């Protein structure tokens, strides 16, 4: 066994990726507060460090030192585990996402991805779905009525978006001819799939918003209906885990959108002969753009009612996704 190539490099990669994701999630909280504030004629955090740049650190310290209250009557094991499940599921999702081409680093040929597997897309869908288990379990185990309502909504939400998420991706698979995400990115060498699949992109974007529990689909949480939904009984570090999981999920989901529809690290239309690390920068820039979309949407529109969302996704989005898939199949077959 080649220890360097088979153990140390992947380990270093894993640690670096996890740390970057955590940092990204943490700074997403800051970024959202800052950008939202600009939408709302406010300053946002501006006390901890210049531009409030140390705010996430201060929040983390607070969360760690805060007394944790485990209420009576909770199902203790599940109650403690649930935020961890959400958190881990989000991180693991990123394992198959390539964020750059192969590069030479410190004399080693390193692919800028964690694992390059054939069924990457399926892996992605499977692990991403686990995140809502953390929410459902957390809400249920809290033995609190608000949490329970939040958990039930999370379950309802999952069965609303999961299917259209898969079907909108089928058209992509069909075009790229692969479930491997690196190959899907390679397929977008000239044009991002957004151009070929505008409808699929929109459907996917709505589904992924719901997957991230983000406005307008932040139904399991809905502070002004369910107090704090599934998180009502959580405080201290457990709350922070849920919180950072949500924001890291935004980062990861943005990366997914970028990889599948926006061409990953590839430059649009043939400007491909750049330094590979510039590709990483491009990937990041695209991710930031999608993240901005998340915040923009949150700052702008109201929340849907969850039964209406369910009806909308089953009676409108699902047929639409089917039509998109068949149309794509027909076009591919006849061209």
């Amino acid at each position, binding site marked *: 066994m080649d220890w360097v190539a088979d153990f140390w490099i992947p380990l270093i990669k894993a640690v670096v990726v996890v740390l970057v994701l955590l940092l990204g999630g943490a700074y997403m909280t800051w970024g959202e507060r800052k950008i*939202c504030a600009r*939408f*709302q*004629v*406010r300053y946002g955090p501006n006390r901890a460090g210049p531009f409030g740049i140390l705010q996430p650190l201060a929040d983390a310290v607070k969360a760690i030192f805060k007394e944790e209250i485990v209420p009576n009557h909770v199902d203790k094991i599940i109650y403690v585990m649930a935020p961890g499940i959400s958190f881990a599921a989000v991180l693991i999702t990123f394992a198959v996402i390539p964020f750059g081409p192969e590069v030479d680093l410190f004399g080693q040929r390193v692919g800028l991805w964690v694992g390059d597997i054939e069924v990457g897309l399926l892996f992605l869908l499977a692990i991403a779905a686990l995140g809502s288990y953390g929410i459902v379990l957390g809400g249920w185990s809290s033995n609190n*009525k*608000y949490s*329970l*309502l939040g958990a*039930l*909504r999370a379950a309802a939400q999952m069965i609303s978006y999961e299917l259209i998420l898969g079907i909108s991706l089928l058209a992509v698979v069909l075009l790229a001819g692969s479930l491997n995400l690196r190959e899907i990115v390679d397929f977008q060498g000239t044009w991002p799939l957004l151009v070929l699949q505008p409808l699929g992109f929109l459907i996917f974007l709505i589904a992924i918003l719901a997957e991230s529990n983000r*406005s*307008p689909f*932040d139904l399991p949480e*809905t*502070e*002004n*209906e*369910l*107090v704090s939904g599934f998180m009502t009984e959580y405080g201290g570090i457990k709350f922070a885990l849920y919180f950072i999981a949500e924001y890291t999920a935004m980062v990861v989901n943005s990366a997914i959108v970028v990889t599948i529809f926006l061409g990953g690290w590839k430059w649009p239309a043939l400007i491909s002969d750049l330094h590979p690390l510039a590709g990483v920068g491009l990937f990041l820039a695209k991710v930031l753009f999608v993240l901005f979309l998340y915040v923009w949407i*949150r*700052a*702008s*529109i*109201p*929340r*849907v*009612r*969850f*039964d*209406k969302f369910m009806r909308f996704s089953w009676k409108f989005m699902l047929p639409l996704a089917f039509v998109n898939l068949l149309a794509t199949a027909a076009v591919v077959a006849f061209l």
Partner: protein
Amino acid sequence: MDISRELRERFGPAIVAEQETRDGIPTLWVAQDRFRQVLAYLKSGTDRPYAMLYDLTAIDERARTQRKGQPAADFTVVYHLLSFTRNHDVRVKVALAGAYPVTASITDLWPAANWYEREVWDMFGITFEGHPHLARILMPSTWEGHPLRKEHPARGTEMGPFRLPVEKQEREEEALLFHPEEWGLERHGEDTDFVFLNLGPQHPGTHGLLRIVLQLDGEVILDAVPDIGYHHRGAEKMAERQTWHTFIPYTDRIDYLGGVLNNLPYVLAVETLAGIEVPDRVKVIRVMMAELFRIASHLVWYGTFAQDVGQLTPVFLMFTDRERLFDIVEAITGGRMHPSWFRIGGVAQDLPRGWDGLVRDFLDYLPPRLKEYDKLVMGNPIFKARTQGIGAYTLEEAVEWGVTGPGLRACGLEWDFRKKRPYSGYEGFEFEVPTAQRGDCYDRAVVRVEEMRQSLRIIEQCLDNMPAGQYKADHPLTTPPRKERTMHDIETLIAHFLGVSWGPVIPAGEAFFGIEASKGNTGYYLISDGGIHAYRARIRAPSFPHIQMVPEISRGLMVPDLIAILGSVDFVLADVDR
């Protein structure tokens, strides 16, 4: 035909007496055994009926000295009815004898009487036979005594120090537990168990200390039981201890978003009692301030309503606008949210130099903002999906439940006190009364948004036609008198001294004055026994009946809809509980 003659002809001796009041509302004393027939006749027997139970309250008569021409009574129950077709009110009084009298309930005539009768029971200890659930409503169920009775202490120092040992705390908590059986609610359905959920008092969606116990099947609301009183401060009791003048700041805190809109009905009622006629300048200043506060109140509602359906940004924009408006209020009055600026017979000071520029700027500033909010909020398809068809009631239901203000106009009835019974010179202004047809959450919003534009129109007319003249009436009961004169003539100085140290003495009598406030009709029913404070001050607050109606319009909907309904009703808990 005149209603009191009509009733006399029909009921003969059952009409015991007719009382003179300062407000000119026919006030009939009806025998206790016949009053239900009289009320039923007024509600549906007579042509152009008195369809709305506008207010129901009681008076503890035992300490009253000036009751000339009124039948003997220890307690009086007062029914205040309103006819939209006649644009006329009638007051029916029923004299009760005994320390803890018993009378008949009228909940079968008006469902809205339910809470009013509970309040009277809570405050006076008058029992209503036939009431479905005569429980305390504003006071905690553990309270001893009935606060508005004259023998009940009016201040903490008369009651001994307050202590909260653990046992008492536990007892109070125990008393707050909700027992579904008491309210006739099932715990189990056919194949599911119902969940009973406390929504509030500590809940971000209830806009204050309101508790609504929900009976949920899944997330569908089967029934809702509001529990109010967490914001009860006993304003009506305080009025019996404060002088007529020093009670003004308390009124600001009834609908705490309405500012001087609360001062207005109070000072108008006192002026009616005292017979003060105010100069034109006072009227126009009052109208301008009232309309500014209507906008301020509606802006808060607009932002929080959008927030209630999940839109984060509008509330910040609208509060920013409101801050600008408060800058004007601050320049004129020195206060912001609660300026307590109206006085008996006038306003506190004349307008400062440069006020017109500030108001003009605001008139230019707000309309484009409102236009933008139309796109941001009212035009948003998700917002529409969340509010259209939700929490709708018909005009009949609205009248039945005592709904006034924008909630009533959203059902298609063009009823605005500023138009129908102009006060404070509203007859001289040009404005429209916006209405909508469907009576749902969205339509209530439509009405309020348009009202802001109409308020701007009124303010512009105030600005263009501000009359010259005095800012206080030249009347001995004007309190305090004009400062410039106190320094020069002895009568005014004496009046000032008495008014401030002792308090103005308002002649004995009764007067009600209702105005179109931002939430609905706010009215003060004041009774003077010829003293320096009110013998009884009844605050007819619009939010009280509105909250009572919430269960009616939320059954069968879901929790998010309830939050949208609460937002659209636009209540203030301080206005509900007083």
